[in-house]
Structures are given as structure tokens and as C-alpha cells.
């Protein structure tokens, strides 16, 4: 379609003086009449006026395009008037109008009128073009200006269409979700299908739990027109520096892949510039909460296998000892009584020891990319082991007593050395400095942001130093900073918490408030699961067992209330520790919507761990969503501990779960307490925790 098909020299009148809108309309209709476009000028005018009544057709910038679709129109046509002095055509911008086009469309003329309008507008947007038209001195000149412009526009459009047809787009995709089991692959499939529908070649890399499949090569990245990231966690970004990167979530790729492909086709995608961190720009959801969730999930998903592998081996150790007949007599050595059990328990225990470092390491990795990994591991290791890793200083070494005074030192400590010795080294006064998984989360975030900060500080360094940064500066300076903060700030604080809690428990026990003590002990087991609170409770329990053993050795009968109190405390502790994994396993069954597929697949593992008193099974859940999960485990375990103490259940073994139930006094009510506590946790999770897809 060309404008000239509709507009002829007879339909153009230049340099007209118009007094008002009505006169302008009359002039334009007269032109249509003279060209022979109309059956009934009066009826057509009525249509035009009806249209103007709904809103002015003067679109501003001195242009008005009145138009009417009516049976009074014989054939579609266009006429034009210029009015250099301007006329008040009730324009939207209040300015006088000096260029008027009138479109006449017959009834049922499909989209002709829209096409003419659209084409006209494309040209009229060019202001110099409009001015040329107003200044045109003859209708012939007026038309040739339009012709010329139209030819220009058509050539432009054609060129555009050609390039988009000729050029075969090459897209790349990367999909990744926190657990890497289902969404990663569903998203990849969605992108591949949508691309095939649009006839575009795409290669999608899947970063799932089975490792990276279909990895993108650097040559492919160099050739790609656009890279579509459908990721809910961070992926290796440095390789995409300088490429157009479209950020989306796996949900986008699963539900609206076509939209992503279209966006990528539009080419209106910002070029990604790698700035060092692994953080993605223009995330679909950049809220602080979501960012934290993403980093946490990176840590949790890497930690999960350690918990499961280590936990099950430890459970097997208990099983072996039970089979060998040490269930009732193993006591503190239960799980270490026979060579095979001891082997399993040591391997499992060592692997579980990696849990917190891995959690911290991969949180830091998610924040700061590879340089964050080592620093995060270091922070996690210090959180998992406390300041016990800081062993004594050998040459000057002495020992420290309960009051914190050093003796036997070969040098007198002064100033800074004294500060370091008194504050950093695990002395009896500072309590247990293990901060467990909550400390590990803190360490991971700390490490990640320390490395990001270092990267920022080092960004001014010359390019020749680039190789030195990840190999020297980040690890050395990063680990030093994190080490100082962990050993001198976080861990001593944790020690204080521990000392305070122990004092409170001792006070409760001596006051004889056994049920309350049971409640608190149970709850404490399920807050940080291996951190200071849990440790304080557990150490109190084993301490109570030792105390009971000492009393019995001195001739106090086992039935003495003081001895019984010790056993009751231990029973509450173990039942409290057995609640979280079982409660979560139940919740996975009853409220599947609240958990990811990976989480749901741990049901059996968690039941086994619950039965073995391996509270750590709950850690991946608590770490992924601490604010919603911990209250549930806390209350459930507290209820179980309370009931167990209320029913005066006793336990003489420090560990072992159901394998040592033979040693439990009042075992039936003990099991009832455990099940009630777990049910409480399960139902609270169902109430409190959000659905996975809403996170």
C-alpha cells in the first residue's frame, strides 16, 4: 500500500486560511467530494463530527487527522490541507493546527484506514518532514515530498525485514535451580521447544545437581546473539562478559519460554559487564530477601549430600553396635564399641564435620564467585570448630585457669599479646565457642562480602596484577580478615552465650524444676542444631550423666531423686534432638507443597536420622528457611522434652536414638513424647512455612 494510491493532487489544497474547526472540516470534505470519494457529503460530515465529539483528532505538533468510516464513503481516500497560519482544531496540546489530513473509509473496509493512519504517522513523526509539507508551494511538490519519504521508510522496513530473515539467530541458554533436580531440566526443555517453534537454534546448558551438562564452549559464547539465563541461583558469569544477557527465572522459562525468546529476538537486551562478583544484574526479583535466599540455597544444596552421607553412616554405626549387643551397656562409647561400628561412626562423623564449612563456603561462593569459596570454607571451619582450632602457643605456652589467669608462661604477656592470649584462645572461662550452622551462615555471608569488598578495593590495581588477586590477595587477606572476625568477635560471643545457658540449666536442675528444665533442654536442642545453644544443652546432659555416675560410684542408689534428675535431663535432651528430623519428614509427607523436590526426597533419610538422634538432618531445612522452620522445631522439641520430663522418662546413654531405647525408663511414654513433639513440629510447619513457589 502506498499513500499516493489514496492521495491525488486534486485532494491537496495548500495555504488555506481557516477560521475554525468547522470550516476546516467543510474544506476537507469538499476536497473528498471533488476527488469523488463520497456518496453523501452531509452524512459523511455527520460521521466526522461524531468522531470529533469522542475526542479531538488533532494529535498535536500542528497535525490533525480527522477520519470517518461511513456508508457515505464511496471509496477509501485521503485529502490534505495546509494552513500555515494555523487553526484552532481543539488540539490535545492546545497548539494551532497547520497540517490536516482527512481519511475517508467505506463501511467494512477492513483495516485500510488503520494502515493508512499507521503509515502516515510513521512519516509525520519526523518534524522536518511536516515542516516541508506545510511549506510546499504546489500540490505536486506536496505529493513528491510524501513519495520520497515513503520510499525512504519502505526501504528502511525492507532492510529490517531482510536482516531478520537472513540472519540465523544463535541463542544460548543456561538453566539452574537451587536443587538442580527438576526445574533446571524443565526450563531447558521449555527454551528448546520455544526456540524450535520460532526456528531459532539454541543450545541450553543445564547446571543441575548431576553437574553441568551440555556446557557452553567459549567459541559458542563468542558467536551467540543472546544468552538467556533461566536461573534461580547464581551460575558462572565471567564467561558472558560483553555479551547480551537476558536474566530470567526457571519459572519464566517453564511457563513463558516463547516470551523469553521473543525478548531475545527484539535484541533490546543490555550487554552484561562482569564486575567480579557472581551477582546477576537485572534479576527478575532483586529484593534483599530473595538475594539472601538464593545465597542460602546455594550453600544448603551443596551441604545436603554431606548431611545425608555422614548421617546415615553414623546411624549404621549405632545399628551395628545394637546388633552386637551393646545397646544397653555401651554408654558413652555407644557407636564405638565394635571395630566396624567405630569405623562407620568415624567416617560418618568426619564427613558431617564438613557440613558447616561447605554451607559457609558455598554461600560465599554464591556471593563472590570462586574467590569466595576458600574464604567461606575458612569461616565455616572456624564456626564449626570454635576457637578450639586455635591451640596453645607452644614456646611461650602455659595454661590458663578458670579465672582466666595464665600460669607457666616463659614470657610475661603484655599489651597486644595478652589481649590475643586472653581473648582468642579457648580457655575454660570462655565456654564452648562452637557456633554451628547459624555461625556457618554468618561466616558464609561475612566471607562473601569480605571478598566482594576486596575485589572492589583491588579494582584500581593495574591489569598486570590480575593474576595475583585470586591466587594471593583474596585468599590471604580474605582468610585473615574472616579469621580475625570469627576468632575474636563471633566465637567469644558464642562462648558467652554458652556459659550463660549452662549456668541457667544448672540453676533449674538444682531448683528441682524438672518439667521446665525438660522443656528448655528439648527446645535448646532444636534451635541451632549443633550450635552453642544445642551444645550447651547437650554438654549439660553429658555432664549430668557424669555427675550421676560419680554419685552412684559414691554409693548413692540409682533411685535417688538427684541421680534420677540427671537421667531425666538426658532423656529430655535426646528426645528434643530426635524431634526435628521426624517432624520435618512428616511435614514433607503431609504438606508437600511447602518443600522442594530435593527436600521431599529426604523423607526416609530424615526418619533414619531422627531414629538415630542425628538432629543435623534438619539443618538443611532450617538453613534454607530459618525464620519459618526453627520456630516449628523449637516448639515441637520443647513439647517433647517437657512431656518426657513430666512422665519422668530417664536415659542413661548419651547418644543412640531408638537403639538405646532399651535403657530408657518409661519407654512407652518416651515414644509418645517423641511422636507428639514431632506432630507439633509437623503441623506448625504446615501452618507457618510458605509454599515453595511463593518463596
Amino acid at each position, binding site marked *: 500500500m502506498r499513500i499516493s494510491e489514496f492521495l491525488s493532487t486534486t485532494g491537496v489544497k495548500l495555504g488555506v486560511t481557516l477560521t475554525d474547526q468547522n470550516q476546516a472540516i467543510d474544506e476537507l470534505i469538499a476536497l473528498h467530494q471533488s476527488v469523488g470519494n463520497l456518496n453523501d457529503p452531509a452524512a459523511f460530515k455527520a460521521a466526522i463530527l461524531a468522531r470529533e465529539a469522542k475526542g479531538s483528532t488533532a*494529535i498535536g505538533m500542528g497535525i490533525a487527522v480527522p477520519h470517518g468510516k461511513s456508508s457515505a464513503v464511496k471509496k477509501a481516500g485521503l485529502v490534505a490541507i495546509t494552513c500555515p497560519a494555523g487553526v484552532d482544531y481543539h488540539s490535545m496540546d492546545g497548539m494551532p493546527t497547520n497540517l490536516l489530513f482527512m481519511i475517508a473509509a467505506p463501511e467494512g473496509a477492513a483495516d485500510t484506514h*488503520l494502515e493508512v*493512519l499507521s503509515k502516515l504517522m510513521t512519516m509525520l513523526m519526523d518534524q522536518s518532514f511536516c515542516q516541508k509539507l506545510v511549506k510546499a508551494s504546489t500540490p505536486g511538490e506536496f505529493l513528491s515530498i510524501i513519495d520520497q519519504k515513503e520510499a525512504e521508510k519502505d526501504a528502511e522496513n525492507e532492510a529490517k525485514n531482510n536482516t531478520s530473515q537472513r540472519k540465523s539467530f544463535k541463542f544460548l541458554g543456561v538453566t539452574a535451580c537451587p536443587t538442580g533436580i527438576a526445574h533446571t531440566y524443565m526450563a531447558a526443555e521449555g527454551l528448546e521447544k520455544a526456540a524450535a517453534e520460532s526456528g531459532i537454534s539454541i543450545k541450553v546448558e543445564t547446571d543441575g545437581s548431576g553437574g553441568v551438562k551440555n556446557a557452553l564452549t567459549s567459541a559458542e559464547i563468542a558467536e551467540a546473539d543472546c544468552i538467556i539465563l533461566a536461573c534461580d541461583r547464581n551460575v558462572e558469569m565471567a564467561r558472558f562478559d560483553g555479551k547480551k544477557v537476558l536474566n530470567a527465572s526457571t519459572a519464566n522459562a517453564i511457563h513463558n519460554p516463547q516470551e523469553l525468546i521473543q525478548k531475545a529476538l527484539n535484541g*533490546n537486551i543490555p550487554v552484561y559487564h562482569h564486575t567480579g562478583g557472581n551477582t546477576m544484574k537485572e534479576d527478575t526479583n532483586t529484593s534483599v530477601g530473595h538475594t539472601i535466599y538464593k545465597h542460602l540455597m546455594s550453600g544448603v544444596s551443596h551441604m545436603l549430600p554431606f548431611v545425608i552421607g555422614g548421617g546415615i553412616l553414623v546411624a549404621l554405626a549405632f545399628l551395628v553396635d545394637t546388633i552386637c549387643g551393646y545397646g544397653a551397656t555401651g554408654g558413652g562409647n555407644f557407636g564405638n564399641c565394635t571395630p566396624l561400628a567405630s569405623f562407620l561412626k568415624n567416617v560418618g562423623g568426619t564427613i558431617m564435620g564438613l557440613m558447616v564449612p561447605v554451607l559457609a563456603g558455598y554461600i560465599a561462593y554464591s556471593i563472590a564467585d570462586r574467590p569466595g569459596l576458600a574464604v567461606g570454607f575458612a569461616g565455616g571451619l572456624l564456626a564449626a570448630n570454635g576457637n578450639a582450632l586455635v591451640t596453645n602457643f607452644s614456646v611461650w605456652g602455659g595454661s590458663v585457669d578458670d579465672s582466666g589467669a595464665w600460669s607457666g608462661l616463659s614470657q610475661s604477656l603484655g599489651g597486644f599479646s595478652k589481649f590475643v592470649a586472653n581473648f582468642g584462645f579457648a580457655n575454660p572461662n570462655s565456654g564452648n565457642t562452637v557456633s554451628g550452622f547459624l555461625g556457618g551462615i554468618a561466616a558464609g555471608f561475612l566471607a562473601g562480602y569480605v571478598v566482594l569488598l576486596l575485589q572492589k578495593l583491588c579494582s584500581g590495581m593495574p591489569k598486570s596484577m590480575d593474576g595475583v588477586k585470586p591466587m594471593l590477595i583474596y585468599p590471604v587477606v580474605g582468610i585473615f580478615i574472616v579469621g580475625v572476625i570469627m576468632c575474636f568477635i563471633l566465637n567469644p560471643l558464642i562462648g558467652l552465650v554458652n556459659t550463660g545457658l549452662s549456668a541457667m540449666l544448672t540453676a533449674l536442675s538444682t531448683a528441682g524444676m524438672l518439667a521446665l528444665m525438660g522443656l528448655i533442654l528439648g527446645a535448646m536442642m532444636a534451635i541451632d542444631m549443633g550450635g552453642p545453644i544445642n551444645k550447651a544443652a547437650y554438654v549439660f546432659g553429658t555432664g549430668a550423666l557424669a555427675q550421676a555416675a560419680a554419685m552412684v560410684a559414691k554409693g548413692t542408689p540409682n533411685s535417688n531423686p538427684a541421680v534420677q534428675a540427671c537421667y531425666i535431663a538426658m532423656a529430655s535432651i535426646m528426645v528434643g534432638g530426635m524431634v526435628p528430623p521426624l517432624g520435618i519428614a512428616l511435614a514433607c509427607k503431609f504438606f508437600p507443597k511447602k518443600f522442594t523436590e530435593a527436600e521431599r526426597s529426604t523423607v526416609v533419610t530424615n526418619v533414619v536420622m531422627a531414629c538415630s538422634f542425628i538432629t543435623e538432618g534438619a539443618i538443611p531445612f532450617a538453613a534454607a528457611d530459618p525464620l519459618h522452620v526453627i520456630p516449628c522445631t523449637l516448639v515441637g522439641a520443647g513439647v517433647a522434652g517437657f512431656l518426657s520430663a513430666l512422665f519422668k522418662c530417664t536415659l542413661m546413654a548419651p547418644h543412640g536414638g531408638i537403639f538405646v531405647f532399651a535403657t530408657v525408663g518409661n519407654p512407652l511414654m518416651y515414644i509418645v513424647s517423641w511422636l507428639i513433639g514431632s506432630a507439633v513440629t509437623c503441623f506448625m510447619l504446615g501452618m507457618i512455612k510458605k509454599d515453595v513457589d511463593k518463596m
Partner: protein
Amino acid sequence: MVSKTVKVTNEQGMHMRPASVMSQTVTPFTSSVKVIFNGNTYDAKSVMMLMSACIKCGAEIEIQCDGPDENDALKAAVDLVESGLGD
């Protein structure tokens, strides 16, 4: 940035009046409002841009808003298109 794809259902497409209604509806928002159609992006605050897009009945357009009140802007624009652009 938020966006949504909607179908233009009014019989005559994005002709002048719908375009001006659209532009008047979205201009008060601080956010930028764009219409993406046929691979091109048009400023929805400009009547001329909208008309030049030649969006016909049945066309699927993507409305994309970016700015502090993007959600409200998107809702207003989407509601307008879905209600037939005032036709």
C-alpha cells in the same frame, strides 16, 4: 521492570482514539510504558508512536513498564487493552 502480553480485541485495532486513550492513561505514571509489537518497541505515551505501530484487531502486544510505579502502570495499561481500549 514488569511486562505482560495482551491481545488487542477491539474491532478496529489501535487506531487514533484507542491510541490517545492509551497515551492519556499511561502518561500520568512516572514509569516508562512501552508497547512491543512485531519486534519493535513503541512509547505508549506517544499517540503517534502507537498509531504508527499499526496494531490490528487480534494482535498480541507486549506492554512493558519500568519505573517506581511500574506495577500500577502495567495494570492500568493491561486493563485498558483488555476492556477494548474504550471502543
